[in-house]
């Protein structure tokens, strides 16, 4: 018989490296037509970071995402970057890119100000224009300013910037300190069906409510959550590298290392928590790793809700769940009533 259960798990996760400096540097060049190029040492690993960085630079310059071309990942041509790791790209490289764009924008304002008979501090950039704050009808197209900068003023608008999160080393004895610049938070709730005769677990639905600060691109955040949940489902139920007694892997292949296919995936509902982090670029933090962190616990808590067995060792394969169910049934006549309490000695837990 299939029993349905639901379980929740929440989590916190840091952005950036633990204490250690992990800077990113960036360069933004504004072209004579008002489009721009961003140079960044980060590496696009599939998560869409280059699009996010383009959006951040575009926002700062008041132009569109498509107007920003991103050149990345070349130690000769692009500035240093600590890397696409620790969910740091949006926050650290994003801040660096924003600062670089801001510096390029300062040059544009310096050039535009006398042309509009104002001080640079009175200018703003949005909708492809540079305009006087509070007087949008007094504006120039950003391309005209950029072209003027090159051919008349002789001041090419180039900005470079860098960012490193503020941290404080941890005391070696108590671990007290400030290891990260910021953290993100999330909750996932899983709904599962457990076959109480075979131990098979099917994940039906997962609601994932994730904080990423400002969502620079909600579509890419959804993609990260959906992908992270798939890794979480695999971690919870299927994946395991097995070793023989001599320390050699038994299943170094995709036939016997089981990872989620399209048939294993639940319905994933993505919810982005409204939030704004003033230390991040336009309030953004990050989301890459947190997406798979709470999934396994949510699923295992749901299994407990469904059939009353606590799996304490991942993956919760059907064999493990089956054995736990058997053990629970054997215990049943000796126990009166209540569900087993949470303890290491709980007979419903199986290693």
């Amino acid at each position: 018989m299939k029993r349905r259960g639901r379980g929740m798990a929440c989590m916190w996760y840091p952005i950036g490296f633990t204490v250690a400096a992990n800077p990113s540097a960036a360069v933004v060049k504004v072209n004579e037509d008002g489009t721009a190029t961003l140079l960044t040492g980060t590496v696009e690993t599939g998560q869409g970071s280059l699009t996010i960085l383009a959006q951040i630079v575009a926002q700062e310059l008041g132009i569109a995402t498509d107007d920003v071309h991103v050149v990345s990942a070349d130690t000769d041509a692009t500035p240093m970057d600590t890397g696409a790791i620790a969910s740091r790209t949006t926050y650290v490289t994003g801040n660096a890119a924003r600062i670089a764009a801001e510096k390029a924008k300062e040059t544009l304002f310096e050039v535009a100000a006398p042309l509009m008979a104002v001080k640079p501090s009175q200018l703003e950039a949005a909708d492809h224009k540079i305009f006087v704050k509070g007087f949008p009808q007094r504006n120039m197209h950003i391309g005209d300013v950029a072209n003027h900068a090159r051919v008349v003023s002789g001041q090419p608008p180039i900005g470079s910037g860098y960012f490193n999160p503020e941290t404080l080393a941890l005391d070696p004895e108590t671990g007290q300190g400030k290891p990260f610049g910021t953290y993100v938070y999330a909750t996932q709730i899983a709904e599962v069906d457990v076959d109480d005769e075979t131990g098979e677990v099917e994940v039906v639905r997962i609601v994932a409510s994730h904080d990423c600060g400002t969502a620079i691109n909600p579509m890419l955040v959804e993609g990260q959550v959906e992908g992270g949940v798939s890794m979480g489902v695999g971690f919870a139920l299927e994946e395991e590298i097995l070793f023989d007694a001599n320390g050699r892997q038994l299943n170094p292949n995709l036939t016997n290392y089981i990872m989620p296919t399209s048939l294993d995936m639940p319905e994933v509902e993505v919810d982005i928590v409204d939030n704004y982090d003033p230390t991040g670029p336009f309030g953004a933090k990050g989301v890459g790793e947190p997406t798979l962190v709470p999934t396994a616990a949510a699923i295992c808590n749901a299994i407990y809700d469904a059939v009353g067995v606590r799996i304490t060792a991942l993956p919760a394969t059907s064999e493990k769940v089956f054995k736990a169910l058997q053990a629970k049934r054997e215990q049943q006549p000796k126990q009166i009533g209540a569900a087993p309490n949470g303890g290491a000695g709980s007979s419903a837990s199986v290693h």
Partner: protein
Amino acid sequence: MVNVTLKVNGETRSATVPPETTLLRLLRDQFNLTGAKLGCDVGDCGACTVIVDGKPVNSCLMLAGQADGREVLTIEGLANADHLHPLQKLFEHFGSLQCGFCGPGVIMSAKALLDENPNPSAQEIRDALGGNLCRCTGYAKMIEAIKGASCILRGEEIPAVKSAFVTE
């Protein structure tokens, strides 16, 4: 060495290759059609999926010699100079691909499905993608895009789903 002559994306191509050459290697190394990818070389991941005589096939499991005289469609044959195939258009707009490595294989599996079943349910789409592994996306936006592409191909409206294609 074996001589292989086959139609690839509508064009007749030939090559002379060692007999153990797979169709995947033939396409990638001899014809420079690098869309089909080598993810495992043993038929587990589906990154090498192409369509042979109308059926989706793991090209790493087919010998080049077995493809002699057949018609092969690869990802490079879907779009033409004027238009993207609706699958490619919607995969782009819905954000269905992230690292993109599994993309050609998934799209070819989807194409084979839509050729056979112009109005697949979400479950039928999942079944068709069952042999294509993806580590980045969780498959969710792929299924949305394939459903949407099936609508376009039937001349119908795409259902309102959250996507960059449909302005909110």
